[in-house]
């Protein structure tokens, strides 16, 4: 089916046919069997969708709606503060622990090596995941949908 025929079907179904388009639509209905079949099928679908609508939620929902929006705003701020604080504290703690461990002579070299391996491995994983996320974002078909 041509794009023009699809457009006419949609406009006819939604009552948006212009004067000349109506003539063209009626001519196609009379001359093109496939067009006619599609029209009848879509009309039946339209009849079904016209018979239903969105379920309306209870009125009480709307009373607390705005409060819930503000709670979300506050929680967003709280999460940002919490995350920044946690990152600084954990990083400082790890740095200090690492320093103390590596200047300690009683710890065997292979223990020091293993701890270093855990940290390096963790860092590589972190970079890899971040890179993957960035790559996915670049290929995201919805990335043009911005605020």
């Amino acid at each position, binding site marked *: 089916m041509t*794009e023009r025929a*699809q*457009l006419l*079907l*949609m*406009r006819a*179904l*939604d009552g*948006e046919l212009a004067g000349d388009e109506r003539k063209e639509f009626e001519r196609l209905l009379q001359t093109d069997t496939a067009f006619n079949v*599609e029209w009848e*099928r*879509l009309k*039946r*679908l*339209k009849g*079904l*969708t*016209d*018979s*239903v*609508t*969105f*379920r*309306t*939620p209870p009125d009480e*929902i*709307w009373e607390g*709606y*705005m409060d*819930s*929006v*503000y709670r*979300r*705003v506050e929680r*967003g701020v709280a999460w940002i503060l919490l995350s920044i604080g946690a990152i600084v504290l954990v990083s400082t703690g790890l740095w200090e622990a690492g320093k103390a461990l590596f200047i300690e002579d009683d710890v065997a070299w292979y223990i020091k090596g293993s701890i270093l391996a855990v940290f390096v491995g963790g860092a590589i994983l972190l970079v890899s995941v971040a890179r993957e996320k960035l790559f996915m974002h670049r290929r995201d078909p*919805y990335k043009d*949908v*911005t*605020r």
Partner: protein
Amino acid sequence: MATEPSERELMIRARRGDREAFGALVTTHMHRAYRHALGLVGSHDDALDVSQEAFARVFRHHRSLDPERPFYGLVYQVLRRLGFNWIRDRRSRRQKLESSGGWLVERQRPPDPSREAEVADLRARLEVAIARLPEREREIFVLKEFEGLKYREIAALLGVPNGTVMSRLFSARRSLAKQLEGIL
């Protein structure tokens, strides 16, 4: 007698962080935002979640509100992105969407009570078929069929040409008609 402030005035105040003005904007548009979210995610709780989060994100960036542009256009851009992410986030969510149901309701009870079960079954099948549509087709289908927007209104809301609206709508309707072939 004091007149109601216009949307533009409310946006100017909201841009300065005025919660009362932002609240008035939310109150005006929350029903519509909820319905649009419902059309995308298909369940009451998730639609509330998505629509409230959309308003919260707009408020977090209230300084960038542009009073020369419609407030709801901005909210809808955030809402649809959240809705699409919600759907794509987990495969199980798509299954949940298909099985959630109950977000549509018959406009009128059938005159013959013995047909109630049959009509409810038809509605349930329609819900599942809509849930299976690709997100962008479902979005346009819902805006057209259940919100009754005109092509140009949908095009303006989504920032796409009229032709794209019609071709996605045709694709959605054709796919639905195919899925419901046995019962139409």
